[in-house]
C-alpha cells in the first residue's frame, strides 16, 4: 500500500510536469517573441529533466540541466542578441506553411498514438526500478559504447571548429 502511494504521487507528478511541458512547448512554437520562446524552452527542458528523474535517470537529468539549461540556452540567447532580432513581439515569425505544419503534426501524432496504444496498451513500468548510478553509466560509456563515444568526441571537435570558422568575422 505504501508503494501504491508512491505510484500515485509519481503519476500526479508526471501529470503536472507533462502539462507544463506541453504548454511550454506549444508556447515555444507559437509565441511571437524569440526571447520568450527561449524562456519557454527552458521550462520545457526543465520539465524534461524532471521526467528523467521520474524515469530513475538522475545522471541524465543533471546533465540535461547543466548542458541544456546551462549552455544551450545561453547560446540561444546569445544568438538572439547577436543577430539583433528585436527583443519583443515580432509580427511574422510564421511562414505560410502554418496549416500544413498543423496537418503534419496531427497526422504524425495520430499515427504514433495509434501505434503506441496498439503496442503498449496498458503496460506498466517495473514497480521499483534500480536507479542507475553514475558509475554504471560510466562503465557503459567507457565499456561497450567506447567507439560511439570517440565518434561523438570527434563530432564535437568538428562542431567547435566549424562554429568558429563560420562565426568568425574577417
Amino acid at each position, binding site marked *: 500500500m505504501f508503494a501504491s502511494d508512491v505510484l500515485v504521487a509519481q503519476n500526479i507528478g508526471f501529470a503536472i510536469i507533462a502539462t507544463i511541458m506541453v504548454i511550454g*512547448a506549444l508556447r515555444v512554437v507559437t509565441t511571437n517573441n524569440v526571447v520568450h520562446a527561449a524562456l519557454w524552452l527552458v521550462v520545457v527542458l526543465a520539465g524534461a529533466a524532471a521526467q528523467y528523474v521520474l524515469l530513475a535517470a538522475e545522471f541524465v537529468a543533471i546533465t540535461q540541466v547543466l548542458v541544456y539549461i546551462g549552455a544551450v540556452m545561453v547560446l540561444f540567447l546569445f544568438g*538572439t542578441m547577436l543577430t539583433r532580432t528585436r527583443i519583443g513581439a515580432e509580427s511574422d515569425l510564421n511562414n505560410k506553411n502554418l496549416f500544413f505544419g498543423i496537418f*503534419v*503534426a496531427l497526422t504524425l501524432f495520430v499515427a504514433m498514438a495509434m501505434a503506441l496504444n496498439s503496442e503498449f496498451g496498458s503496460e*506498466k513500468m517495473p514497480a521499483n526500478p534500480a536507479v542507475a548510478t553514475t558509475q554504471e*553509466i560510466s562503465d557503459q560509456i567507457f565499456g561497450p559504447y567506447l567507439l560511439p563515444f570517440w565518434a561523438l568526441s570527434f563530432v564535437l571537435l568538428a*562542431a*567547435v571548429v566549424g562554429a568558429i570558422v563560420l562565426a568568425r568575422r574577417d
Partner: protein
Amino acid sequence: MLVNQFLLLAAVLFCIGVYGVIARKNAVLVLMSIELILNSVNINLLAFSMRNGSLDGHTFALYIIAIAAAEVGVGLAMVLLMYRNRRSIDLDELSEMKG
C-alpha cells in the same frame, strides 16, 4: 505508472517540434523546435531503458544531449553568418540560393 504515458508525452513534444520546424520562419526558432524533438527522443530512450531495465538508454540520451549541444553551436554559428551576409535570419529569404 504506464509506459505509454511517457511515450505519449514524447510523441506530443515531437509533433509540436515538427510543427515548429515546419511553421517557423525564424532560424533560431527552428533550432529551438529541433531541440524539442531531440528532447522527446531522449524521453523515449529513458522510458524504454527503464522498461527494459538496461542502461543503454541513458548512454544514448547523454550522447544525444552532446550532439544537440554541438548542433546548436553550429546552427547558431550559421544563423550568425546568415545574418551577417543579409541582415536577416528569415529562412524564406534563403530561397534564392539555387545551386
